[in-house]
């Protein structure tokens, strides 16, 4: 057992699990109690995430808040939690999206208790994955966060929900089927004594050939979750089918798990494999950027547009990871954070609009800015973030990634930057069709988002602007990890 100070990370997990248990014991019919319990526990989780973020010592860097306990000593499995500059933004992101997601679903009235129970389970898995440093636990958390998606989408979803849920689950299981052999392979190659990433990370643990093989498996396995082209088609379908809060977690956090897994497991353990496959990663990422934007151009469903824009934006993350530079890593992790908040805001805004108008089809909307200026404002803010307007969070991530990419892969960099035009084109097209123009007569009686319901969107919008104006808050944290990481490369 080794704990340094108050175990914040375990406290975060416990807060989720306790919330889950308490929800299960609240009587079914008492819906508002369920919601309040969820809000309290997710708020507590958010507070703990913020505390961890603030208490992290950037001057010292490295792994902090280490919590280690033997779990199954004979198999070398440890309960090992810690955060570093890569996982810290992700923990904060998860906390924010979790809390705002609970608040966004405040008007839910169909099987409320079950919804929140599954939702808490999902988020527990996500938190565990971001904090864990034990391969075995990473795999377990991956599956914990994966399986609640099926009921969440199939029961509370919309638009071909069974199809979407099934597709998503199958895709992600396929990913996990690639990750598991890779993990076992690495475990065995290292002598079969431990799953501890910090121990396995030591240079010279794996031969170059092993690294190449394992990295490819891990890249594809986690890459499916990060919607890497051409394994992306589950993600727009899943986004569209999922209920609002699940879309938020799904696009905001779950897709980051993929990229984070590539970074934490693949790149940390198999640096030589990473270097070997980096050109492939870059190519695929650039294709994803341009391709996602092009497909988004011809979508008519608001959520599909956002779904494909996510494919495009996750391509930017992939491009950053493939550059093997500090700036690229910084930019990629920052972009993961920014994209998470941005898509959460997107889906939160769409959720409100859908709830009122009962449609997500762009041609049926129109003129919403006049009817619900605030709700439209949130969507437009998110759209501008997606377009890469400076002083909104996403800009800095893209800037850093493009700088790094242009240095390493000039041609790919040119194409990726060219994708900016496309993203401006499809986002503004949606904004114009759905929010501008004369108001639709069918919707003129609708009300704008109230202050109370607007709280989650306000939080997300504020985070976007805060990190857009002061990106160094986040960059300083990420930098501690990425500089050490690049320095440690063979």
């Amino acid at each position, binding site marked *: 057992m080794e704990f340094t100070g108050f175990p914040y990370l375990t406290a975060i997990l416990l807060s989720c699990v306790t919330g889950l248990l308490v929800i299960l014991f609240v009587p079914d019919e008492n819906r508002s109690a369920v919601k309040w319990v969820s809000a309290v526990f997710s708020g507590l989780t958010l507070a703990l995430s913020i505390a961890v973020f603030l208490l992290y010592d950037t001057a010292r860097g490295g792994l902090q808040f280490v919590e280690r306990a033997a779990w199954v000593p004979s198999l070398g499995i440890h309960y090992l939690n810690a955060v570093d500059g890569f996982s810290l933004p992700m923990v904060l992101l998860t906390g924010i999206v979790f809390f705002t997601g609970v608040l966004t679903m405040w008007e839910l009235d169909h099987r409320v208790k079950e919804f929140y129970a599954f939702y808490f389970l999902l988020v527990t898995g996500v938190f565990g994955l971001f904090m864990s440093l034990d391969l075995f636990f990473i795999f377990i958390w991956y599956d914990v966060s994966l399986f609640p998606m099926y009921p969440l989408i199939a029961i509370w979803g919309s638009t071909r929900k069974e199809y979407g849920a099934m597709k998503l689950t199958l895709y992600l299981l396929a990913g996990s089927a690639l990750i598991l052999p890779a993990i076992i392979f690495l475990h065995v190659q290292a002598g079969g004594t431990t799953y501890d990433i910090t121990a396995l990370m030591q240079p010279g643990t794996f031969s170059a050939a092993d690294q190449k093989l394992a990295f490819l498996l891990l890249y594809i396995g986690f890459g499916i979750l990060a919607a890497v082209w051409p394994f992306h088609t589950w993600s727009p379908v899943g986004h569209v089918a999922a209920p609002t809060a699940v879309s938020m977690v799904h696009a905001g956090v779950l897709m980051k798990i993929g990229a984070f897994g590539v970074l934490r497991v693949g790149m940390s353990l198999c640096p030589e494999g990473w270097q070997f496959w980096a050109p492939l990663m870059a190519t695929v990422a650039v294709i994803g950027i341009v391709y996602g934007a*092009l497909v988004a151009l011809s979508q008519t469903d608001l959520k599909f547009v956002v779904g494909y824009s996510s494919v495009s934006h996750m391509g930017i993350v992939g491009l950053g990871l493939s550059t093997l530079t500090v*700036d690229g890593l910084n930019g990629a992790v920052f972009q993961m954070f920014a994209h998470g908040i941005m898509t959460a805001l997107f889906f939160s805004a769409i959720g409100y609009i859908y709830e009122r108008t009962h449609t997500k089809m762009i041609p049926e909307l129109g003129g919403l800015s006049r009817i619900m200026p605030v709700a439209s404002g949130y969507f437009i803010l998110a759209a501008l973030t997606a377009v890469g307007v400076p002083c909104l969070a996403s800009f800095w991530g893209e800037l850093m990634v493009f700088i790094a990419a242009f240095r390493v892969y000039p041609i790919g*960099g040119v194409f990726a930057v*060219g994708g900016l*035009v496309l993203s*401006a084109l499809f986002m503004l097209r949606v904004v114009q069709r759905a929010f501008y123009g004369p108001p639709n007569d069918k919707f003129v009686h609708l009300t704008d988002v109230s202050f109370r319901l607007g709280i989650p969107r306000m939080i997300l919008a504020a985070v976007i602007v805060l990190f857009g104006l002061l990106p160094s808050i986040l960059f300083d944290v990420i930098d501690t990890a990425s500089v050490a990481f690049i320095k440690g490369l063979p």
Partner: protein
Amino acid sequence: MIAVGSTDTTLLAAIAATKLPFVAFAVILLLTRRRPRLSAGLSLTAIAVSLASAGFLLVKHWGIARPIEYAALWLAGGDVSVRVGILIDPLSLIMLAVVAAICLLVQVYSLGYMAGDPGFSRYYAFMSLFAWAMTNLTLAPTLLQLYIFWELVGLASYLLIGFWYEKFSASEAGKKAFVMTRCGDVAFFLGLLLILVHLGNLDIRELNGAAAGRLSPTVVTAGALLIFGGIIGKSAQFPLLTWLPDAMEGPTPVSALLHSATMVAAGVYLFARLFPFFSLSPTALGVCLAVGTVSMLIASTMAMVSRDIKQVWAYSTISQLGLMIMGLAAGNYVAGVFHLTTHAAFKALLFLCSGVFIHAFHSNDMVVIGRQGGRRLRVPMACLVIAAAALSGIPPFSGYFSKERILGALADLPNPLWVAAGLLGAFLTTYYTFRLIFIILFPAPGGEDTAQSHGSEHGHHGGYAVMAWPLVILAAVSVALGFGEKAVAQFLLNPFGSVTPAAAHHAWLPYAALGLSAAAMLLAWFEFGRRGAGQIGFVERVAPLHALFGERWYIDRAYRWLLDQVVYRLFSRLCARNDQKIIDGAVDGLGRVIAAGGGRMSILHTGMVQYRLIVVFVSIALMAIYFFI
């Protein structure tokens, strides 16, 4: 900011000039949305303080020789760090003063023009956003900061063009403006990356200094051309010029401020900012000169046939920006910058005067305005004539001085083609300007049916006085500015140490230019002004030419075709198809194959308990045989 002590008034004034509008923007958007008067007050206060600070800086640093720079680290990264700060030198001071002054005048004018609009607060918020972005762009010490605010002025432009978003054409124009300038910006951004990769930083002073000598000529040329791509987008030069006429869908004060005087001039400002860098590459300068010339000429031809009063000024803006770029590309720094300054004054004046007419008569059509008695509005009419004279380069108005300088610079070039093009441009400019003036001043009585009104902007009467004062001030400036030519030139050239080599004096040039202007004016008078004139221009008599000019040389059609057919039909459709048919088809196909395989396998399962029993017994028997025999 680097701590220089709070007594550093320069820094304080610069911060006040650049940061206050942002405060106004945030406060209006968050708190005072429902209180229009308070919002306007906040915005006006902020920009007034900015102007005062700009004036203070200009006075304090008149005659400044060495640039003053303040910078703070905003973002530290691995290979790149982002610095923000303030760079004060003659160019940025002049531009800052121009920006702040025109912002203030336009905002005052808007009090009358926008009165009663439901989006009044929003309007002032966006105006403040623009003022913030533009002042910071002006004072940027690094190209990266310049790029950031360059994008933000683009955002402000998008929001303000589409301000009346319920009108389809307005939101369409906003989108078009954003996307087209984005195309240029991508080139600009790539140029930045190229320079960053080869030079290591994006400091403007370093780029203009000796450091650029370290770059290979190819890189300099490529970088300069890519950056010029951004200029083409922002300043609406050929071939990205068609967004600017459409941008006139925004409220007229917005057109005056963003789409003529300041924001579109940011492209030219960037050119001037990097003038020494551009000078390193004769190839790049040649391309710039060609692009400027082409833009100037074809925009003038478009202006000759348009009847929409704002469109005419929009084309004229493109053409004048082209002229500035020609001046700079011809190697005359002062000429370009000085024309930028005078143009800002008289073009803003032209738009604001037109705004009064549009406000009064609810029409953008010059014929309708003339017929309904445009000349009865004395102040705007007089100001319009003054501004038109300045635009046409008629002495003693300011345009004369700046234009002569540019023409002089063109005449210095070995190839006489350029000066010929410049003179032709001057002729066309005078022609279309006075065509407009004569149509409004001397409306043809009754006659043909001309009630074709171009979707007028809605507005409310009143506020005439508050709109008139900015006109008078601008008119005075337009007249006076020309006489400050020598002082401004001296001021601008201070940092370069020596004065530019005295240009060869072309005694014939002013006569030629004036003669052409006079000829153009006579032609315009003959066709539009004299009693009983047909009010049909010589271009309009030639149908194909008329169609060509009226359709903007079919540039828009080409873009539309490209977008609809190539991007949407071909690429987008193709990728979406690929997604559905090939990728999803493969995955679903895999699922179907597995399901079908399961179906095949299920034949083995007859479902009868006893068959299974038989299978069990047979297999046991076989195992027994295998083990025992």
